[in-house]
Structure formats: C-alpha cells, structure tokens
C-alpha cells in the first residue's frame, strides 16, 4: 500500500530589486541547516551547493482559461515541480525566488491550480524582503512593490541600519496599512534565523492563528498618525479589511457569495483568507484565495477555548467595505 504522497513545503521569496533577496538566498544555501532544499531561481544554471539543488527558471507566466488575466500561472514552475517530484532523492523543502519586478500572484496561483503541484506540494509562505531605505519611493512608483507586501506572510524589513528610528516606524506603519497580517522582522543584511522564514506554515491559517490570536483581528482602521507627509490613501492603493460574523455560516450561501464576489472583484481583491464556523460542522473551515483562484477545506476541530466565530480578511484595491460586510452578514445560517 502506498501512503498518500507527502506535500513538500514551498517558500516563495519576493522583494523589489536590491532589497536583499539574493543575500537571503545565499544564506539559505550556505548555512548549515541540515535540510535539503531545491531552490528555483531566475536564469541560473542547475548547480548543487552542498546538499541543495539549484534549478534555473524562466518566469514564464501564462493565462489559463483562454486568456483570463486573473488566472495567470507560472508554467515553468509546473514543469520544474513536475520534474522534481519524479526524483528518487526527495527534498525537505522548495524555495522559489522571483525577480524583483514580479507580481507574486501567478506564483501563488500556480499552487492552487495544477493537480500535480497541489498534490505534491503546499505553499508554506510568501516571504517578502523590503528595503527600509528605499521602500517609500518604491511604493510611490511601482505597483509590484506594493503587491509584494500585500501578498506577504512574512516580511523582512531589511537594511534597518540605514534609516532612523522614526523613519522605520513610519515605514512599518505604511506596511501594516497594506498588510496588517504579515509577520514583520527587522533585519540588517537579511540576517535572520532561517526557521523564522522557512517551513512556517504561514499560508495555513490555523498555524498563524495559533501563533498570534490577533491575526485576522487587525483591520483597515489601523491608525496612520505617522503619515506626516500629506498623502491620503486613495482607491488605487492596496489596503486590507476584515469582516466578522458571530452566527454560524451557511455553507451554500457562503459559497455562492464568495464565488460571485471573486468572479466580479477578483482583479481588485489580491488575497482573501478566512476561518469559518459552518453551521453543519464541528470542524473549522479554512478558506483562502489569490485573486479569483480559491480553495477551502475543513481542517480540524475548533480549539476548546476558541470562540467559534467566523472571520474573513481581504487585501486589495477599491474594497467596498459596506458591500463586503453586508454580503458576509447575509451568509448567516
């Protein structure tokens, strides 16, 4: 009897040009961590460093479903992971480096889309390296920089030695406005204990909630008092919103509502995640989506001490708070 195949955790490493991604990658490759990684990097020949395997990728993004731009995936990742899972010598984890200008969505969507990739791997977390000195400017002029923060589960706020304390607080505040749910670490030269970024299970909500009970409690109304330069948030900027429901949720109503919502607004909603108390189950239902591509499953019993309430968060542009709140409220059983 063959066991169900184990799912290899995948960490996606993003960050704008010069943020310190390569430094971090080199640390993973050279540090004596006793694990075997397959590292998928851009335009790089396949070479083994110690125990690890480095594979070059081409970042080939294509549109599924005859050109739906919300269903873009990385074909090269499907191909490479398809090859890696055939190897006899297995890996403890896979690390995917993206280029500085990459939108993280196609990478994340790949892990929701392809049957083989879904069966053999799981997206562990998206780690974004942010250059504390230059991120302010980047956020003004590059959508990708903002999206990389929005998609992150873990953020390395790097080069903190190059900015003042006040500046750092302001930057962190700006990051929290975009994505209050990511764990932020302050680093210099990408120096961080690797267990803070690898095999975290960050994409898995259960784990995050276990670590930080306030996760998902954070909201759009995060204070902005450090914004001393007059630049009010406008609709094109990414922000986050969380909605809550004390009553149990009707599974069919929720499914209809969320699929309709993501169909209509999936281009603006970058990520959504939630934990739901479905009316006919004792299990926690965990939902997550990247743009229009979503998945949900019952993941285990509610911890006894937990209040069984349903929480859903959205990160995106042009979020209509009233309609999201009302829509979710209408899913009550």
């Amino acid at each position, binding site marked *: 009897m063959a066991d169900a195949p184990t799912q290899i955790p995948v960490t996606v490493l993003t960050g704008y040009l010069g943020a310190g991604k390569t430094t971090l990658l080199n640390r993973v490759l050279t540090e004596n961590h006793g694990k075997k990684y397959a590292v998928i990097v851009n335009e790089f020949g*396949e070479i083994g460093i110690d125990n690890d395997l480095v594979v070059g990728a081409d970042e080939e993004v294509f549109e599924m479903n*005859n050109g739906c731009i919300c269903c873009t995936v990385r*074909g090269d990742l499907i191909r*490479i992971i398809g090859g890696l899972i055939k190897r*006899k010598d297995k890996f403890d984890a896979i690390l995917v480096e993206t280029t500085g200008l990459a939108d993280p969505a196609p990478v994340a969507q790949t892990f929701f889309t392809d049957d083989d990739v879904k069966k053999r791997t799981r997206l562990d977390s998206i780690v974004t390296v942010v250059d504390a000195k230059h991120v302010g400017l980047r956020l003004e002029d590059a959508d990708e920089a903002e999206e990389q923060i929005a998609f992150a589960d873990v953020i390395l706020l790097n080069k903190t030695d190059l900015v003042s304390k006040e500046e750092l607080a302001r930057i962190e505040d700006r990051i929290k406005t975009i994505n209050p749910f990511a764990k932020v670490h302050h680093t210099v030269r990408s120096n961080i204990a690797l267990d803070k970024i690898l095999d975290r299970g960050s994409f898995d909500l259960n784990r995050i909630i276990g670590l930080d009970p306030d996760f998902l409690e954070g909201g759009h109304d995060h204070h902005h008092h450090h914004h001393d330069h007059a630049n009010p948030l406008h609709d094109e900027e990414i922000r986050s919103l969380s909605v809550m429901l004390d009553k149990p949720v009707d599974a069919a109503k929720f499914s209809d509502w969320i699929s309709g919502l993501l169909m209509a607004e999936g281009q603006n909603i970058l990520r959504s995640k939630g934990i739901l108390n479905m009316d006919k189950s004792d299990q926690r239902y965990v939902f997550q989506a990247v743009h229009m591509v979503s998945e949900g499953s019952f993941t285990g019993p509610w911890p006894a001490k937990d209040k069984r309430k349903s929480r859903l968060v959205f990160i995106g542009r042009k979020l209509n708070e009233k309609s999201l709140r009302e829509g979710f409220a209408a899913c009550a059983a």
Partner: protein
Amino acid sequence: MAEKGEAAGKRRAKVVTRKYDAYVVAAHANGRLFGVGFGDGAVRLVDSENIDADPTTIAAHDGAVLSLAPDINPGFFLSGGDDGKVMRSGPPSVSELIAEEKGRWIDHVTAHAESGTRVYSVGKEATILGKKGTRKLKHPTAVGGLAINPKGKRLAVSHYNGVSLWWLGTEGSATVLEWKGSHLNLAWSPDGDYVISIMQENSLHGWRLSDNEHMRMTGYGAKVRSMAFTKRGHFLATGGADAIICWPFTGGGPMGRAPLEFGYAGGAPVTAVASNPKHDVLAAGFEDGTVLIGQPGPATPALIVMGENKAAVTAMAWNPDGDRLLAGCEDGTLHVADFRL
C-alpha cells in the same frame, strides 16, 4: 521480487508484477524490448518474450529520467534527464551519451526510425540530430512536447499559445498553429493530417492541416495527461475522466460530436492510455492503480490488473504484436501482462 497472478475479467493473461523504488516516468516498446524510464535515473529493459526474466537495469542518468522514446534501432531507447544528458540505452547493457547540455534539464526527447532523426528539447530550444547534422530551433517559450509525424518529415513542437511545425529536411521558419494557453504533449493522427495537443487546462486542442480547421475537445474533470490514436486513427483515446474518452476521427473529425466513453472503473480518473498496434484495442491505467483493456464501445472491458498498490499508473506500452502490455506506476510498480494464452 516478481509476483505472478492471474488476471480477473474475461481476458486471460499471465501478469508479472515487480516493484522498484522510483517513479515510473515513461515506457515504450521497441522491437521485443520494453524500455522504462525511472525517477532514479535508470532505464530498465523488459524482454517481452520472457516476462519472467529480470529486467536489465541501465544507470543512464544521475538524477531523474524526464522523458523516454523508442530510439532508431530496435531494442534501443532514447532518454533525457535532469542531469542534462541525452542517453541511448539498449541490450545487452549499452549506455551511450548522445548529447549533453550542462546544467540544464532535457525535458523532452523523440526519435523517428526510418528517417534516422532524434530530437530533444531544453527550455525554449529544440535540437534536431539528423543525418544531415544538428539544427537548433528557437521557440517563444519553453517547449511542452515534441512529436515527429508518421512519415518522418515534420516536427511538431508545442509551447505557449500554439504549436510550431518544422520541416525536418529543409531549413526555414516554422508554421505556427496558434491557440492561446499552454500546450503540452502532442500527437499526430496516423494519416498525418491532425496535430493534437494536451493543454494545461483540462482540455485538448487540435488542428487539421489540410484545411486549417481547429477543434477544441473539452469537458474533462482532471488533467488529460495521456492520449493515443487507435491503430487506424478512428478514435483518439484520452485520460482525464473516470472512463476512457474516445473522440471520433472518422467522417470529418470530432467537431460538434460527442466522444464515446467506455471503461469506467470505479470513479478514479484515467491517467495513462495506450493504443494496441495490431487491433482496435485500448489499454487504460487509472489514478488508483487499476489497469484495463477493451475495445471502444459499450462492451465491458476485460480487467487485467487490479492495482493492489493504489498508486497512479503513469506509463503504459504495448509490444508490436499487441499481445503483451506493460504498465508502470508512480510508486515504482511495474506490471507486464502476457495475453498469449
């Protein structure tokens, strides 16, 4: 250790099952030998005349075999690996380096015996190793599949947003058959008029070259993974559903027609199909390890191997006489069935 068993169902067969510790990536027959490529880099040769004999193991690659095809001479196989090597393996234990692309993966290989042509691909580039020399063909994105037409004159190369058709004998640019999306495995119909691609999104796309007609074949619940034309080209059999899907290619092709479905085996999707070279008979392997054979039509197919191991069938091949069948699984299980009873 080999295990022998008697197959269930109507058709009697002797089945020998072996287990290896590596993923079965691809399998083909060439002459009396079956060649099987594994995730441990080995190409194993199985003698169809003596299925009890231990297969010959040839350590062809340092990493995993990524693709395998029958080579030019009977009994020989061409393989591409993630060690950047294109290898030729054959009896008694020949292992010969054909080409090498250091630090790259050889994603696909194919060969055509009569024209003496070998082709392999690395990323966006396909390389033809022909009688007249070596030719490198560039494509806009990574190559998803390679197939030489039955006459050995044209090479089809799939990539994003279409398929490029190259003439093997003459220099010149490709004719591009366009269709949006990611195109993977390719097949030519036996008459050479149709080119079919398996797409990433649970569908097939086809082109009829004589009149540039397009055809979309959709409705699959899973990845199609595998396809094969029946012997005379009447049907294109595919995986991707809980029964074998057979698209009719007689009387004007599959456009606007429903496919024939047969060979349901409990609900698991078909992951590999192989067409018998002598008769209009198909073999199908399922995600739950079941293997069955049958004729396209409503008759119940004969179940020949019940996959006790429950691992997905990843590769299948018939011998040229069509009376022996090999099936390999992702957990390294290898069945060989002999129907000469």
